[in-house]
């Protein structure tokens, strides 16, 4: 399966270009579920912001690599940053009573809810999102 790839700098503006490309790609597949497109848009936004803000620490000299495509009716999106990675296996629960009023920490929870599958590489600086389209 060949994925489309692009590399962008770690700017919050560059992610808009990524979102446009991916959503245009999804549109060309003929997928038109409003709910599904909302899910993809939100998960992609959260993933890109995590890569830029937490992965690359807003360092504009660092890039993000994005790959996307369709495989057997599933949308695949991979996002990789140049950061040190993180321990994705021990994330605190943002819905816990002592965390509910914290302003951060909900991104991955939302991505997991809106995607059918999410997998990190061992280091934690690359994530693969999967969503069934058809």
């Amino acid at each position, binding site marked *: 399966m060949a994925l489309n790839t692009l590399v962008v700098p770690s700017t919050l503006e560059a992610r808009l270009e990524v979102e446009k490309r991916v959503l245009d790609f999804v549109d060309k597949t003929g997928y038109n579920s409003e709910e599904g497109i909302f899910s993809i848009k939100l998960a992609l*936004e959260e993933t890109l912001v995590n890569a830029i803000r937490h992965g690359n620490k807003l360092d504009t000299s660092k890039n993000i690599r994005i790959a996307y495509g369709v495989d057997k009716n599933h949308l695949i999106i991979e996002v990789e940053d140049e950061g040190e990675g993180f321990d994705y296996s021990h994330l605190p629960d943002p819905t816990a009573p002592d965390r509910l009023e914290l*302003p951060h920490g909900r991104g991955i929870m939302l991505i997991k809810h809106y995607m059918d599958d999410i997998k990190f590489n061992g280091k934690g600086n690359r994530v693969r999102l999967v969503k069934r389209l058809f």
Partner: protein
Amino acid sequence: MEKKQHLITEPRGDVTIVTFTDKKILDESNIQEIGEQLNDLVEKHYLVKMLLNFENVEYLSSAALGKLITLNKKIKEENGKLKLCSVRPQIYEVFKITKLNKLFEIYDDEDRALARF
């Protein structure tokens, strides 16, 4: 350069209805400005009985939720009240997934919300 006004405010008795003008509260720079404008309403204008109207909002990210939480804290510190209304089903789901529907009072429309201040 003047910053874009992301909020429209309307007094209704002692409650201020604040309507978002942006359809997408996703863009980080927008979120930052929105957060600042919301905080200014409390800190500079002492508008501590506030109803946020989400009728125009089609997309919302977790960073925007963070700004709402911060606003809620500020208003609570002033013994004020914050309520939300006119949240589209897809946006309400974001509140529900994150259990923030337990933190915020969310109403179907302005009238129902105003009746509970």
